[in-house]
């Protein structure tokens, strides 16, 4: 049984809990540094990235998490979580910081404000199709050769990755946790299982 932390400072923590439980994993809320002990991986949920980054600093979690992630600790970020993991954040605040664990550039609200938020089928080649729910979603505009693109979406202006992986770090522009489909979380848990072997 995998123990997977869900960063519970702000955002849709409950949905990630439900998805992890459906997959037989044990989710744990992470709000304090001591909550990181004994975890096999961590999910950074959707929410507001400015709020989550602010609370990562005030809670003292920023540095220990940075050390863990730099050391290869498996982590998966959805939406705001993807922003927190990206190397470069465009259209953010001047003091926006991120863990710099994924070699991608993301634009905050890169698909538009809430009125442009959308849902659309996303094909994971050879694995199936999931419903992608994009809410003021970040758009991946640049990605390095070391980044594996697992799924892309063409929003009328060319293909952009929406689910990517670089070693043990996963990022997703949409919210797999908002649907009952467990496919995306399952991929992360499979990778986590392999890493533990």
């Amino acid at each position: 049984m995998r123990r997977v932390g869900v960063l519970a400072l702000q955002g849709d923590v409950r949905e990630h809990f439900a998805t992890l439980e459906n997959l037989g994993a044990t989710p744990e809320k992470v709000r304090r540094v001591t909550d990181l002990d004994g975890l096999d991986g961590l999910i950074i949920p959707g929410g507001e990235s400015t709020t989550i980054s602010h609370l990562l600093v005030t809670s003292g979690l920023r540095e220990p998490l940075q050390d863990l992630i730099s050391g290869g600790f498996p982590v998966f970020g959805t939406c705001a979580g993807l922003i927190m993991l990206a190397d470069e954040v465009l259209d953010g605040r001047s003091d926006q910081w991120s863990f710099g664990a994924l070699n991608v550039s993301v634009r905050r609200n890169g698909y538009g404000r809430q009125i442009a938020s959308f849902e659309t089928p996303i094909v994971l080649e050879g694995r199936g199709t999931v419903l992608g729910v994009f809410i003021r979603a970040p758009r991946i505009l640049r990605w390095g050769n070391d980044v594996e693109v697992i799924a892309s979406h063409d929003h009328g202006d060319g293909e952009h990755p929406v689910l990517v992986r670089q070693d043990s770090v996963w990022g997703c522009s949409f919210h797999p946790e908002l649907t009952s489909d467990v496919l995306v979380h399952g991929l992360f848990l499979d990778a986590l299982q392999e890493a533990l072997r």
Partner: protein
Amino acid sequence: MNSALTSSIVGSALVKRGLADMLRGGVIMDVVNPEQARIAEDAGAVAVMALERVPSDIRRDGGVARMSDPQMIQDIQTTVTIPVMAKARIGHFAEAQILQALDVDYIDESEVLTPADEENHIDKWDFTVPFVCGATNLGEALRRIAEGACLIRSKGEAGTGNVVEAVRHLRTINAQMRRLASADVSELFALAKDLQAPIALVQEVAATGKLPVPLFCAGGISTPADASLVLQLGAEAVFVGSGIFKSEDPERMAKAIVEATTHFEDAGIVAKVSTGLGAAMRGAETATLEQRLADRGW
């Protein structure tokens, strides 16, 4: 339009409720200008509510309170990166159309403004932008959801700095949901009649034990302890109106309420952030109010 875009859907219930889900565990702050919006974002607000006057000033000034000047809303939109909400009068669908044209992220059909229709609320299904509405009890919450609201907040008594009404509304909604969850299915029809709520939504609450949309708290929250209280009572996020910018030190108060909202179960952290904050807004006894805003809405 290419095939990828034709299979994309905007304005679905999932997408509209989804933004409310993303705001959970956060603080939405009333702001009246870009400077306050910047302070709110710096403090860690998940969204701002752009309005011309905070509720305590609306209460003091009297007169008709309307939607804010679009220029002010746009100035705030260009200042911050977090979602920007704005208020329309109850039933004033033209104000809501304007707010949607301005690309606001959420519309609050709010009793804080002077109602424009004393029978009908806005048909919120008609809009791509999501709506939040206030409620004092479960029946009112379910009527708003039936009209298309994607987020429910307690009304509380806005502009008083007194949390007593918000507590009453949260406790009432929760007690009524527990009653439904424990009822026999054959009793739900009569309970729906009592609540004046659609039977399908009553059956859904009875089956799940919770609202089909998130439940936030608004109305009178003015300290970190208030935030902790209402979160422990089941609210999933808080709206703070006058409580921040009518306090002695708004920057510190804003940061403190944000931290208390995240760590609401940890009294040690709430104690720490409550220390040396300066005076909260003065506040008012709700029993002697001439006008109760919570009575607006039907």
